[in-house]
Protein backbone atom coordinates (compact mmCIF):
# COMPACT_ATOMS: atom_id res chain seq x y z
CA UNK A 1 0.00 0.00 0.00
CA UNK A 2 1.44 3.37 -0.96
CA UNK A 3 1.34 6.17 1.58
CA UNK A 4 -0.31 9.17 -0.12
CA UNK A 5 2.34 11.76 -1.00
CA UNK A 6 0.17 14.74 -0.01
CA UNK A 7 -0.47 13.30 3.44
CA UNK A 8 3.20 12.52 3.86
CA UNK A 9 4.09 16.12 2.87
CA UNK A 10 1.57 17.38 5.40
CA UNK A 11 3.29 15.42 8.16
CA UNK A 12 6.73 16.52 6.96
CA UNK A 13 5.76 20.21 6.99
CA UNK A 14 4.28 19.84 10.47
CA UNK A 15 7.45 18.17 11.73
CA UNK A 16 9.65 20.86 10.17
CA UNK A 17 7.46 23.59 11.71
CA UNK A 18 7.85 21.96 15.11
CA UNK A 19 11.60 22.07 14.56
CA UNK A 20 11.40 25.76 13.60
CA UNK A 21 9.49 26.48 16.81
CA UNK A 22 12.09 24.55 18.75
CA UNK A 23 14.71 26.90 17.28
CA UNK A 24 13.14 29.61 19.49
CA UNK A 25 11.36 31.21 16.56
CA UNK A 26 8.83 32.77 18.94
CA UNK A 27 11.71 34.54 20.69
CA UNK A 28 13.05 35.77 17.34
CA UNK A 29 9.64 37.14 16.38
CA UNK A 30 9.17 38.69 19.83
CA UNK A 31 12.59 40.34 19.62
CA UNK A 32 11.69 41.77 16.20
CA UNK A 33 8.55 43.38 17.64
CA UNK A 34 10.48 44.64 20.66
CA UNK A 35 13.21 46.25 18.52
CA UNK A 36 10.60 47.96 16.35
CA UNK A 37 8.64 49.27 19.35
CA UNK A 38 11.79 50.36 21.22
CA UNK A 39 13.13 52.13 18.13
CA UNK A 40 9.89 53.98 17.58
CA UNK A 41 9.72 54.96 21.27
CA UNK A 42 13.14 56.59 20.85
CA UNK A 43 12.08 58.24 17.58
CA UNK A 44 9.12 59.89 19.38
CA UNK A 45 11.65 62.26 20.91
CA UNK A 46 12.44 63.70 17.48
CA UNK A 47 10.28 65.95 15.33
CA UNK A 48 9.99 64.75 11.74
CA UNK A 49 7.14 67.10 10.88
CA UNK A 50 4.99 66.13 7.91
CA UNK A 51 7.41 63.32 6.95
CA UNK A 52 6.92 61.44 10.23
CA UNK A 53 4.57 58.76 8.87
CA UNK A 54 6.88 58.03 5.93
CA UNK A 55 9.86 57.90 8.27
CA UNK A 56 8.15 55.47 10.68
CA UNK A 57 7.12 53.19 7.81
CA UNK A 58 10.64 53.21 6.34
CA UNK A 59 12.15 52.48 9.74
CA UNK A 60 9.80 49.55 10.39
CA UNK A 61 10.23 48.10 6.89
CA UNK A 62 14.02 48.40 7.00
CA UNK A 63 14.04 46.61 10.37
CA UNK A 64 11.83 43.83 8.99
CA UNK A 65 13.80 43.51 5.74
CA UNK A 66 17.12 43.22 7.55
CA UNK A 67 15.97 41.00 10.40
CA UNK A 68 13.70 38.94 8.14
CA UNK A 69 16.61 38.26 5.77
CA UNK A 70 18.80 37.07 8.63
CA UNK A 71 15.94 34.94 10.00
CA UNK A 72 15.18 33.39 6.59
CA UNK A 73 18.80 32.36 6.08
CA UNK A 74 19.37 31.13 9.63
CA UNK A 75 16.14 29.09 9.68
CA UNK A 76 16.87 27.46 6.32
CA UNK A 77 20.42 26.65 7.27
CA UNK A 78 19.30 25.22 10.61
CA UNK A 79 16.49 23.02 9.34
CA UNK A 80 18.08 21.90 6.06
CA UNK A 81 21.82 21.76 6.78
CA UNK A 82 21.14 20.80 10.40
CA UNK A 83 18.79 18.02 9.28
CA UNK A 84 21.37 16.68 6.85
CA UNK A 85 24.22 16.80 9.37
CA UNK A 86 22.16 15.20 12.14
CA UNK A 87 20.99 12.45 9.82
CA UNK A 88 17.30 13.38 10.25
CA UNK A 89 16.77 13.20 6.47
CA UNK A 90 18.25 9.67 6.41
CA UNK A 91 15.60 8.38 8.78
CA UNK A 92 12.88 9.96 6.63
CA UNK A 93 14.47 8.71 3.41
CA UNK A 94 14.41 5.04 4.46
CA UNK A 95 10.68 5.48 5.04
CA UNK A 96 10.05 6.19 1.40
CA UNK A 97 10.28 9.99 1.65
CA UNK A 98 11.88 11.36 -1.51
CA UNK A 99 14.65 13.90 -1.16
CA UNK A 100 12.74 16.73 -2.91
CA UNK A 101 9.75 16.09 -0.61
CA UNK A 102 11.93 16.44 2.46
CA UNK A 103 13.62 19.59 1.13
CA UNK A 104 10.42 21.30 -0.02
CA UNK A 105 8.68 20.53 3.27
CA UNK A 106 11.49 22.33 5.10
CA UNK A 107 11.24 25.28 2.71
CA UNK A 108 7.46 25.47 3.24
CA UNK A 109 7.87 25.40 7.03
CA UNK A 110 10.31 28.31 6.86
CA UNK A 111 7.87 30.08 4.51
CA UNK A 112 5.09 29.74 7.11
CA UNK A 113 7.40 31.08 9.83
CA UNK A 114 8.34 34.07 7.66
CA UNK A 115 4.64 34.75 7.01
CA UNK A 116 4.07 34.93 10.78
CA UNK A 117 7.05 37.24 11.16
CA UNK A 118 5.79 39.56 8.39
CA UNK A 119 2.27 39.57 9.81
CA UNK A 120 3.59 40.41 13.27
CA UNK A 121 5.84 43.14 11.85
CA UNK A 122 3.01 44.90 10.04
CA UNK A 123 0.65 44.52 13.01
CA UNK A 124 3.28 46.27 15.11
CA UNK A 125 3.71 48.94 12.42
CA UNK A 126 -0.07 49.54 12.42
CA UNK A 127 -0.04 49.90 16.21
CA UNK A 128 2.93 52.28 16.05
CA UNK A 129 1.22 54.47 13.45
CA UNK A 130 -1.95 54.56 15.57
CA UNK A 131 0.12 55.37 18.66
CA UNK A 132 1.66 58.33 16.82
CA UNK A 133 -1.82 59.51 15.83
CA UNK A 134 -1.60 58.68 12.11
CA UNK A 135 -4.39 57.15 10.04
CA UNK A 136 -3.90 53.39 9.56
CA UNK A 137 -4.99 52.18 6.12
CA UNK A 138 -5.37 48.42 6.46
CA UNK A 139 -5.29 47.79 2.69
CA UNK A 140 -2.11 49.82 2.29
CA UNK A 141 -0.43 47.95 5.12
CA UNK A 142 -1.58 44.58 3.76
CA UNK A 143 -0.13 45.37 0.32
CA UNK A 144 3.16 46.50 1.82
CA UNK A 145 3.22 43.34 3.98
CA UNK A 146 2.61 41.19 0.91
CA UNK A 147 5.54 42.81 -0.91
CA UNK A 148 7.77 42.32 2.14
CA UNK A 149 6.74 38.66 2.33
CA UNK A 150 7.61 38.14 -1.36
CA UNK A 151 11.05 39.59 -0.69
CA UNK A 152 11.61 37.29 2.32
CA UNK A 153 10.30 34.30 0.36
CA UNK A 154 12.90 35.02 -2.33
CA UNK A 155 15.67 35.21 0.28
CA UNK A 156 14.39 31.92 1.68
CA UNK A 157 14.54 30.31 -1.76
CA UNK A 158 18.16 31.53 -2.16
CA UNK A 159 19.01 29.93 1.16
CA UNK A 160 17.22 26.70 0.25
CA UNK A 161 19.33 26.47 -2.92
CA UNK A 162 22.61 27.20 -1.19
CA UNK A 163 21.82 24.70 1.58
CA UNK A 164 21.03 22.04 -1.04
CA UNK A 165 24.21 22.74 -2.97
CA UNK A 166 26.82 23.24 -0.28
CA UNK A 167 28.09 21.44 2.76
CA UNK A 168 28.65 23.38 5.95
CA UNK A 169 26.71 26.14 7.68
CA UNK A 170 29.14 28.94 6.85
CA UNK A 171 29.29 28.20 3.12
CA UNK A 172 25.48 27.97 2.81
CA UNK A 173 24.90 31.18 4.79
CA UNK A 174 27.62 33.07 2.91
CA UNK A 175 26.30 32.09 -0.52
CA UNK A 176 22.72 32.98 0.46
CA UNK A 177 23.85 36.38 1.73
CA UNK A 178 25.77 36.88 -1.52
CA UNK A 179 22.66 36.19 -3.61
CA UNK A 180 20.61 38.50 -1.39
CA UNK A 181 23.18 41.25 -1.86
CA UNK A 182 23.13 40.73 -5.64
CA UNK A 183 19.31 40.99 -5.60
CA UNK A 184 19.49 44.17 -3.52
CA UNK A 185 22.09 45.69 -5.86
CA UNK A 186 20.43 44.45 -9.06
CA UNK A 187 20.42 47.92 -10.66
CA UNK A 188 24.20 48.15 -10.20
CA UNK A 189 24.63 44.63 -11.63
CA UNK A 190 22.54 45.63 -14.65
CA UNK A 191 24.57 48.84 -15.11
CA UNK A 192 27.82 46.82 -14.90
CA UNK A 193 26.50 44.44 -17.55
CA UNK A 194 25.93 47.35 -19.93
CA UNK A 195 29.26 49.07 -19.31
CA UNK A 196 31.78 46.21 -18.91
CA UNK A 197 33.96 44.58 -21.57
CA UNK A 198 32.70 41.56 -23.51
CA UNK A 199 33.71 38.72 -21.15
CA UNK A 200 33.03 40.55 -17.87
CA UNK A 201 29.85 41.99 -19.40
CA UNK A 202 28.51 38.50 -20.08
CA UNK A 203 29.26 37.54 -16.49
CA UNK A 204 27.35 40.54 -15.13
CA UNK A 205 24.45 39.95 -17.54
CA UNK A 206 24.27 36.29 -16.51
CA UNK A 207 24.11 37.36 -12.86
CA UNK A 208 21.43 39.91 -13.80
CA UNK A 209 19.28 37.19 -15.41
CA UNK A 210 19.80 34.61 -12.71
CA UNK A 211 19.22 36.83 -9.69
CA UNK A 212 15.90 38.62 -9.24
CA UNK A 213 15.84 42.32 -8.45
CA UNK A 214 14.27 43.38 -5.15
CA UNK A 215 13.40 46.77 -6.66
CA UNK A 216 10.72 45.02 -8.77
CA UNK A 217 8.89 44.20 -5.52
CA UNK A 218 8.71 47.84 -4.43
CA UNK A 219 5.52 49.91 -4.38
CA UNK A 220 5.89 51.32 -7.91
CA UNK A 221 5.38 47.91 -9.60
CA UNK A 222 1.86 46.49 -10.14
CA UNK A 223 1.07 43.95 -7.41
CA UNK A 224 0.17 41.15 -9.84
CA UNK A 225 3.47 41.56 -11.72
CA UNK A 226 5.45 41.56 -8.47
CA UNK A 227 3.62 38.41 -7.35
CA UNK A 228 4.29 36.54 -10.60
CA UNK A 229 7.91 37.75 -10.72
CA UNK A 230 8.73 36.66 -7.15
CA UNK A 231 6.77 33.40 -7.32
CA UNK A 232 8.45 32.48 -10.61
CA UNK A 233 11.95 33.10 -9.29
CA UNK A 234 11.23 31.37 -5.95
CA UNK A 235 9.86 28.32 -7.81
CA UNK A 236 12.91 28.29 -10.09
CA UNK A 237 15.30 28.38 -7.15
CA UNK A 238 13.33 25.68 -5.30
CA UNK A 239 13.37 23.49 -8.42
CA UNK A 240 17.12 23.93 -8.79
CA UNK A 241 17.56 23.11 -5.09
CA UNK A 242 15.53 19.89 -5.51
CA UNK A 243 17.54 18.86 -8.58
CA UNK A 244 20.85 19.39 -6.83
CA UNK A 245 19.72 17.81 -3.56
CA UNK A 246 18.42 14.72 -5.38
CA UNK A 247 21.79 14.10 -7.00
CA UNK A 248 24.10 15.22 -4.25
CA UNK A 249 26.10 12.63 -2.36
CA UNK A 250 25.59 13.17 1.34
Amino acid at each position, binding site marked *: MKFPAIRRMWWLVQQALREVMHLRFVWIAGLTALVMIAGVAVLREFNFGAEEKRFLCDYAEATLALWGTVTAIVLNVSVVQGGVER*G*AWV*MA*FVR*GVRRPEWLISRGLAVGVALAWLTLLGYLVLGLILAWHGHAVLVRELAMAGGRMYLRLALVSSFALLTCAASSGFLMASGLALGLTLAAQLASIVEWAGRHSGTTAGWGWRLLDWLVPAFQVLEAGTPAAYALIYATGYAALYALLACLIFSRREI
Partner: protein
Amino acid sequence: MTSAQPLAIRAESLVKNYQTDWNGRRRRALDGVSLAVPQGGVCGLVGPNGSGKSTTLKLLAGLLQPDAGMCELLGQPVARTVAAGQVGYLPETPGLPEYLTGEEFLRELAQLSCRRSIDDQIACSLALVGLTAEAKRRVREYSKGMRQRLGLAQAVLGDPTVVLLDEPASGLDPRAADQLGDAIKQLRAQGRTVLLTSHFLPQAEEWCDQLVMLEKGRVVFDGSSAEVADSGGLNKLFLERTGP
Protein backbone atom coordinates in the same frame (compact mmCIF):
# COMPACT_ATOMS: atom_id res chain seq x y z
CA MET B 1 28.64 -18.26 1.25
CA THR B 2 26.14 -20.62 -0.33
CA SER B 3 22.69 -21.25 1.03
CA ALA B 4 19.51 -22.92 -0.11
CA GLN B 5 17.44 -20.06 1.37
CA PRO B 6 16.49 -17.13 -0.86
CA LEU B 7 18.78 -14.16 -0.48
CA ALA B 8 17.62 -11.05 1.35
CA ILE B 9 20.77 -9.06 0.58
CA ARG B 10 22.88 -9.52 -2.52
CA ALA B 11 25.77 -7.32 -3.58
CA GLU B 12 28.06 -8.02 -6.52
CA SER B 13 31.44 -6.37 -7.09
CA LEU B 14 30.50 -3.08 -5.47
CA VAL B 15 32.86 -0.21 -6.18
CA LYS B 16 32.53 3.18 -4.56
CA ASN B 17 34.83 6.18 -4.80
CA TYR B 18 34.59 9.41 -2.83
CA GLN B 19 35.75 12.71 -4.21
CA THR B 20 38.25 14.05 -1.71
CA ASP B 21 38.97 17.55 -3.04
CA TRP B 22 38.00 20.16 -5.62
CA ASN B 23 40.60 18.83 -8.10
CA GLY B 24 38.46 15.76 -8.56
CA ARG B 25 40.88 13.48 -6.72
CA ARG B 26 39.03 10.36 -5.60
CA ARG B 27 39.57 7.83 -2.85
CA ARG B 28 38.36 4.27 -3.34
CA ALA B 29 36.21 3.22 -0.39
CA LEU B 30 34.95 -0.08 -1.81
CA ASP B 31 36.83 -2.18 -4.31
CA GLY B 32 34.71 -5.07 -5.57
CA VAL B 33 32.75 -6.03 -2.46
CA SER B 34 30.39 -8.98 -2.90
CA LEU B 35 27.99 -10.08 -0.24
CA ALA B 36 25.11 -12.55 0.08
CA VAL B 37 22.90 -12.80 3.16
CA PRO B 38 20.04 -15.31 3.23
CA GLN B 39 16.60 -14.31 4.47
CA GLY B 40 16.33 -14.50 8.23
CA GLY B 41 20.09 -14.39 8.67
CA VAL B 42 22.13 -12.13 10.91
CA CYS B 43 25.33 -11.01 9.22
CA GLY B 44 28.11 -8.98 10.80
CA LEU B 45 30.39 -6.69 8.82
CA VAL B 46 33.65 -6.25 10.67
CA GLY B 47 36.92 -4.58 9.82
CA PRO B 48 39.20 -1.74 10.84
CA ASN B 49 38.21 1.93 10.62
CA GLY B 50 37.93 3.08 7.02
CA SER B 51 37.57 -0.43 5.64
CA GLY B 52 34.22 0.37 3.97
CA LYS B 53 31.65 -1.04 6.41
CA SER B 54 29.49 2.08 6.68
CA THR B 55 29.77 2.74 2.94
CA THR B 56 28.48 -0.78 2.23
CA LEU B 57 25.53 -0.18 4.53
CA LYS B 58 24.77 3.21 2.94
CA LEU B 59 24.78 1.64 -0.52
CA LEU B 60 22.40 -1.05 0.68
CA ALA B 61 20.13 1.58 2.25
CA GLY B 62 20.05 3.51 -1.03
CA LEU B 63 21.73 6.55 0.50
CA LEU B 64 24.65 6.29 -1.94
CA GLN B 65 24.88 5.01 -5.48
CA PRO B 66 27.65 2.56 -6.43
CA ASP B 67 30.16 3.56 -9.14
CA ALA B 68 30.18 -0.06 -10.35
CA GLY B 69 28.55 -3.33 -9.34
CA MET B 70 25.01 -3.96 -8.20
CA CYS B 71 23.07 -4.53 -5.02
CA GLU B 72 19.64 -5.97 -4.39
CA LEU B 73 17.41 -6.33 -1.37
CA LEU B 74 14.74 -9.06 -1.36
CA GLY B 75 15.44 -9.72 -5.05
CA GLN B 76 14.60 -6.15 -6.08
CA PRO B 77 16.63 -3.02 -6.69
CA VAL B 78 17.46 -1.21 -3.46
CA ALA B 79 15.46 1.92 -4.34
CA ARG B 80 12.27 -0.10 -4.82
CA THR B 81 12.68 -2.05 -1.58
CA VAL B 82 13.39 1.15 0.36
CA ALA B 83 10.40 2.94 -1.20
CA ALA B 84 8.21 0.01 -0.15
CA GLY B 85 9.25 0.61 3.48
CA GLN B 86 10.86 -2.81 3.83
CA VAL B 87 14.22 -1.52 5.04
CA GLY B 88 15.10 -0.27 8.51
CA TYR B 89 18.32 1.64 8.99
CA LEU B 90 20.22 2.80 12.05
CA PRO B 91 22.82 5.45 11.11
CA GLU B 92 26.16 5.48 12.90
CA THR B 93 25.18 8.68 14.71
CA PRO B 94 21.39 8.90 14.75
CA GLY B 95 20.40 12.56 15.08
CA LEU B 96 17.56 12.44 17.56
CA PRO B 97 15.45 15.55 18.23
CA GLU B 98 16.24 16.57 21.80
CA TYR B 99 12.92 18.37 22.27
CA LEU B 100 10.69 15.33 21.68
CA THR B 101 9.97 12.38 23.93
CA GLY B 102 11.05 8.96 22.71
CA GLU B 103 7.44 8.12 21.90
CA GLU B 104 6.82 11.39 20.03
CA PHE B 105 9.96 10.82 17.96
CA LEU B 106 8.80 7.36 16.94
CA ARG B 107 5.32 8.69 16.22
CA GLU B 108 6.74 11.34 13.88
CA LEU B 109 8.58 8.68 11.91
CA ALA B 110 5.70 6.21 12.00
CA GLN B 111 3.36 8.83 10.51
CA LEU B 112 5.56 8.87 7.42
CA SER B 113 5.26 5.22 6.55
CA CYS B 114 3.38 2.96 8.90
CA ARG B 115 0.98 0.59 7.29
CA ARG B 116 -0.74 -0.65 10.43
CA SER B 117 -1.72 0.85 13.76
CA ILE B 118 0.89 3.40 14.76
CA ASP B 119 0.35 2.84 18.49
CA ASP B 120 0.96 -0.90 18.16
CA GLN B 121 4.08 -0.29 16.10
CA ILE B 122 5.52 2.13 18.62
CA ALA B 123 4.71 -0.14 21.56
CA CYS B 124 6.36 -3.14 19.82
CA SER B 125 9.49 -1.18 18.91
CA LEU B 126 9.88 0.26 22.40
CA ALA B 127 9.34 -3.14 23.99
CA LEU B 128 11.91 -4.73 21.72
CA VAL B 129 14.63 -2.34 22.88
CA GLY B 130 13.45 -2.18 26.50
CA LEU B 131 12.50 1.50 26.47
CA THR B 132 8.79 1.23 27.28
CA ALA B 133 9.20 2.75 30.74
CA GLU B 134 11.24 5.68 29.38
CA ALA B 135 8.99 6.46 26.40
CA LYS B 136 7.50 9.62 27.94
CA ARG B 137 10.87 11.18 28.80
CA ARG B 138 12.45 13.76 26.54
CA VAL B 139 15.34 12.58 24.40
CA ARG B 140 17.58 15.23 25.99
CA GLU B 141 17.28 13.30 29.27
CA TYR B 142 18.38 10.01 27.68
CA SER B 143 21.80 8.49 28.26
CA LYS B 144 24.00 7.54 25.29
CA GLY B 145 22.88 3.92 25.55
CA MET B 146 19.21 4.88 25.66
CA ARG B 147 19.66 7.06 22.58
CA GLN B 148 21.27 4.17 20.77
CA ARG B 149 18.36 1.93 21.74
CA LEU B 150 15.88 4.56 20.57
CA GLY B 151 17.80 4.64 17.29
CA LEU B 152 17.36 0.88 17.06
CA ALA B 153 13.65 1.26 17.86
CA GLN B 154 13.21 3.60 14.88
CA ALA B 155 15.09 1.14 12.67
CA VAL B 156 12.65 -1.68 13.45
CA LEU B 157 9.56 0.55 13.36
CA GLY B 158 7.13 -0.44 10.63
CA ASP B 159 8.12 -4.12 10.46
CA PRO B 160 10.97 -3.85 7.93
CA THR B 161 12.10 -7.16 6.46
CA VAL B 162 15.73 -6.08 6.22
CA VAL B 163 17.36 -4.21 9.11
CA LEU B 164 20.70 -2.44 8.57
CA LEU B 165 22.49 -1.38 11.75
CA ASP B 166 25.60 0.78 11.64
CA GLU B 167 27.57 0.27 14.86
CA PRO B 168 24.53 -0.51 17.02
CA ALA B 169 26.68 -1.40 20.04
CA SER B 170 28.56 1.91 20.00
CA GLY B 171 28.45 3.55 23.43
CA LEU B 172 26.52 0.77 25.14
CA ASP B 173 27.48 -0.56 28.56
CA PRO B 174 27.61 -4.38 28.96
CA ARG B 175 24.02 -4.62 30.21
CA ALA B 176 22.69 -2.48 27.36
CA ALA B 177 24.79 -4.50 24.90
CA ASP B 178 23.18 -7.68 26.25
CA GLN B 179 19.75 -6.14 25.71
CA LEU B 180 20.77 -5.26 22.17
CA GLY B 181 21.87 -8.86 21.64
CA ASP B 182 18.46 -10.04 22.87
CA ALA B 183 16.75 -7.62 20.50
CA ILE B 184 18.76 -8.97 17.56
CA LYS B 185 17.85 -12.52 18.55
CA GLN B 186 14.19 -11.50 18.60
CA LEU B 187 14.53 -9.96 15.13
CA ARG B 188 16.03 -13.21 13.88
CA ALA B 189 13.19 -15.19 15.53
CA GLN B 190 10.71 -12.93 13.69
CA GLY B 191 12.36 -13.93 10.41
CA ARG B 192 13.91 -10.53 9.69
CA THR B 193 17.30 -10.23 8.08
CA VAL B 194 19.88 -8.18 9.94
CA LEU B 195 23.14 -6.75 8.61
CA LEU B 196 25.20 -4.95 11.22
CA THR B 197 28.63 -3.43 11.48
CA SER B 198 30.63 -3.69 14.66
CA HIS B 199 34.01 -3.09 16.21
CA PHE B 200 33.17 -5.33 19.14
CA LEU B 201 34.36 -8.66 17.83
CA PRO B 202 33.21 -10.99 20.65
CA GLN B 203 29.68 -9.57 20.45
CA ALA B 204 29.61 -9.76 16.67
CA GLU B 205 30.73 -13.40 16.91
CA GLU B 206 27.98 -14.14 19.42
CA TRP B 207 25.15 -12.31 17.63
CA CYS B 208 25.82 -13.20 13.99
CA ASP B 209 25.54 -16.44 12.06
CA GLN B 210 27.55 -15.04 9.15
CA LEU B 211 30.61 -12.79 9.36
CA VAL B 212 32.17 -10.73 6.60
CA MET B 213 35.50 -9.02 7.15
CA LEU B 214 36.52 -5.99 5.12
CA GLU B 215 39.98 -4.53 4.72
CA LYS B 216 40.71 -1.49 2.52
CA GLY B 217 37.42 -1.89 0.68
CA ARG B 218 37.86 -5.60 -0.08
CA VAL B 219 36.31 -8.71 1.45
CA VAL B 220 39.08 -10.68 3.17
CA PHE B 221 36.83 -13.22 4.88
CA ASP B 222 33.25 -14.39 4.42
CA GLY B 223 32.04 -17.36 6.40
CA SER B 224 29.67 -18.76 8.97
CA SER B 225 30.19 -18.36 12.71
CA ALA B 226 31.16 -22.06 12.80
CA GLU B 227 33.91 -21.41 10.26
CA VAL B 228 35.10 -18.47 12.34
CA ALA B 229 35.24 -20.71 15.42
CA ASP B 230 37.18 -23.36 13.46
CA SER B 231 39.66 -20.67 12.44
CA GLY B 232 40.43 -19.84 16.07
CA GLY B 233 37.93 -17.04 16.66
CA LEU B 234 37.15 -13.68 15.14
CA ASN B 235 39.85 -11.81 17.03
CA LYS B 236 42.57 -14.10 15.63
CA LEU B 237 41.10 -13.85 12.13
CA PHE B 238 40.99 -10.07 12.42
CA LEU B 239 44.65 -9.85 13.40
CA GLU B 240 45.66 -12.27 10.63
CA ARG B 241 43.66 -10.78 7.78
CA THR B 242 43.82 -7.07 8.41
CA GLY B 243 46.91 -4.93 8.19
CA PRO B 244 48.61 -3.19 11.11
